């Protein structure tokens, strides 16, 4: 990887995104968020603040929830990433997406991809969360529209229905 550096300063990175192996040409310190959005056209991850406060750019990185605006591309080398685009099972919404839709968990929608990935991560670790677990678990993802109540309801509903774990990329 490092030996593929060319005159531009960019290098080839290999990573698995939503189960598909990908090679992208990126600057080592380019933000993972930009690699996803601009090199791979996966625009589901959003930039809200660019400093890891709002959580709109949340993705799963080797199973951990990260702010992709804080991860340099180089760090993602060899890693496995799940974005919102990788969550639905074919044309079917997964249980969390369905619950967000039904409970009013998405209003303007800009925080929704990050929020759903954060909820997915929470339920993966703790399939039967209490309301306080949900409140704490989502505290890294800001939503200005909902006041969070219907998001909590959506996560609780998905948990009750035994939400499938996020699709673990191969």
């Amino acid at each position, binding site marked *: 990887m490092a030996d593929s550096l060319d005159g531009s300063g960019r290098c080839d990175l290999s990573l698995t995104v939503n189960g598909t192996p990908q090679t992208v040409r990126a600057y080592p310190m380019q933000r993972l968020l930009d690699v996803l*959005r601009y090199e791979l056209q*996966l*625009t*589901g*991850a*959003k*930039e*809200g*603040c*660019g*400093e890891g*406060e*709002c959580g*709109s750019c949340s993705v799963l990185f080797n199973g951990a929830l990260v702010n992709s605006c804080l991860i340099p591309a180089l760090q993602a080398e060899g890693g496995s990433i799940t*974005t*919102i*685009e990788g*969550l*639905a099972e074919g044309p079917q*919404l997964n249980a969390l*997406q*369905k619950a*967000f*839709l*039904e*409970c*009013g*968990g*998405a*209003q*303007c*929608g*800009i*925080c*929704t*991809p990050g929020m*759903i990935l954060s909820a997915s991560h929470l339920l993966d670790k703790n399939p039967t969360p209490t309301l306080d677990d*949900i*409140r*704490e678990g*989502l*505290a*890294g*993802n*800001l*939503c*200005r*529209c*909902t*006041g*969070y*109540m*219907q*998001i*909590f309801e959506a996560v609780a509903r998905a948990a009750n229905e035994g939400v499938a774990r996020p699709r673990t990329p191969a």
Partner: protein
Amino acid sequence: MTEHVVGTSVPRKEGRDKVTGAARYIDDITLPGMLYGATVRSQIPRGTIKTISFDPKFDWNEFVVVTAEHIPGKNCIALILDDQPCLADGKVNHPEEPILLLAHPDPHLLQKAVDAVAIEYDPLPPLFSIEDSDRCSQVIWGTDNLFKTFLIEKGSVEDAWAKADYIVEGEYTTGAQEQLYIENNGVIASFNADQGLTVWGSLQCPYYVHKALMALCNLPADKVRVVQVETGGAFGGKEEYPSMIAGHASLLAMKSGRPVKIVYDRLEDMTATTKRHPSRTRHRTAVSRTGQILGGEIDFTIDGGAYATLSSVVLSRGTIHAGGPYFWPSVRIRGKAVATNTPPHGAFRGFGAPQSLFAMERHMDRIAQVVGISPAEVRRRNFLKPGQTTTTEQTIREEIDLGKLLDRALELSNYSAKKAQFARENPAGWIKRGMGIAAFLHGAGFTGSGERYLASVVGVEACANGSIRILVSSTEFGQGTNTVLCQIAAEALDLPYENVRIAQPDTDQVPNSGPTVASRTVMVVGNLVRSAAFGLKQTLFASGLLGSLHSPEEFRAAAQRHVATHGALRSFARYEAPEGVFWDDQKYRGDAYATFAWAVYVAEVAVDLSTYTATVEDFVALQEVGRVLNPVLAQGQIAGGVAQGIGFALYERVVWQNGRMQNGQMTNYIMPTSADLPPIRVFFEEMGNIHGAYGAKGIGELPMDGPAPAILNAVENALGTPFDSIPLLPEEIFEAVSKESPAELLATGGE
């Protein structure tokens, strides 16, 4: 069809795209050959520009550079007074005022270029506060620093003073608040000589931007096209500002001949764009021995920043709401919007009402204390009743029972028992709890003759395949416009919700149904959608293609045949003012709003005297908003508004220095997270009041008005110390409480 669509929680129209990440926001869109644009801004609050110089180390030939002299039309953001330049021309009146624009294919290089433009100024003395502006030591706008004044007079206040048993005075202030939509402002502009200018953007009001671009770019109406794309929150923050950023991108696109995208980062969005107007309200009230309001004076002043923009309209709404949901036999309300050298303050959910109602509802608790009755009782004794008149002498014609609303809110919050419990428990611990009430109203739709002037038009269209499409410029930015308007059309046409969709707001495709503001969309635009849908149905009936009892399949077939035979089938409806509505714009008297939504909110608050932090532990939001057309969306609107209100009260402080926001990041401007908020319990009381489409009143702004006063009333109940300014942060509580000794406070507890 027998099933009703209205009144059910059908899923959000664009919801699927939002939960799958498929929804495309402005920053998700890239056009071929697109450049990125950036703005060079004023570093000082006020002065004249001496020189602009470009660092010779840069190859400036690579950049598109635009200054005021490149503007093809009028250098202003056309809105009300047209006083705000699009680019500063020789002088600046606030920090972050746009001076010069740059565009380049590489956004990273662009940022460095912005820093490589040096501007020298001759500074002039600035004004930063309402008090400074009042003193007029410098005239920074017009002849007296006043954007607008209003005077509402009802009855004889002099008589009230003479009859008063008590005269209760108070001064209340509110700070600036950032809308903090999670998606920053952004647009893309594209220009060619044949088609003219097209702008796609994150925005609330396509026709505001359309009007501004015609004037700025000197183009006729048919050469300017404005398209709203998926918008990631707005709250008023994308009402007027998009005309500015769209103007900038358009100027760069016209000069370069290439598409130009400008998307702000968080810091630029926070420091350069609008916020809620800071306010100061003074009350002086004549009250009887029994707590009856006899009359009074209210002075309501807002800080408009450097240009007039929407301040006159914000002031109007704040002034009209200043008397709250109470009967004033006499009152004199003076409203005033003043100029300061900060970026212009602008639209934000509630639009002046959260400021003046904060004052009114804090003042009611003060009156209760002076008279020696409970906060609930003082409100009950003064509530407006059907047949009485508001401060503008609008007669309440609907069957509203605010006493009943209050009773239910007190019951839902377990108010009396909790208040007694806290009074018992408070003396023993470091955590003091209290209960607070706010009762309020919010006028739906434009003020006074506003809707008549707007004369909104909407269309409903049958497409070639027989499906229905709504044509409105009303935008979706999370509140549910798409969904509720489709519900209304489906209901009117006896069709399933799935058979109706809504056109993307595009000024080439949709009529001007007015701006998406003022809680007017469901009530006013929705009613027009219903009329237009009825018109379309009548056309199909008259054609003989459709019988009055029909299935969705028959409707589809009839619409298809009509379009195939006669071409496009469209029905339009235009707003007409109802009969018997009177408004005097000069005296500010008459029917200010078609109707009001009413609410009583109760906050339960804990103040921890080891950290001086106030936390809301339970929140009851009860309102009368006519008929609820989509319960899930309506609950979401209320809970979201309450959360913003809690932020307004306890979290969100804009730190100013020399007229510039110093904490323009999410790390230091703190909004509530999921861990900070209490259960927000939302309830609706339907009292049979029928307005707008299928009985709905405006709802979007209402929940912003009540939380702050309810919370500060609860803090006073907890500590026995009054606070009359928001935001109320731990440092203020510390300062006030440490004046008394904590030990003494521990001993005295709450009430």
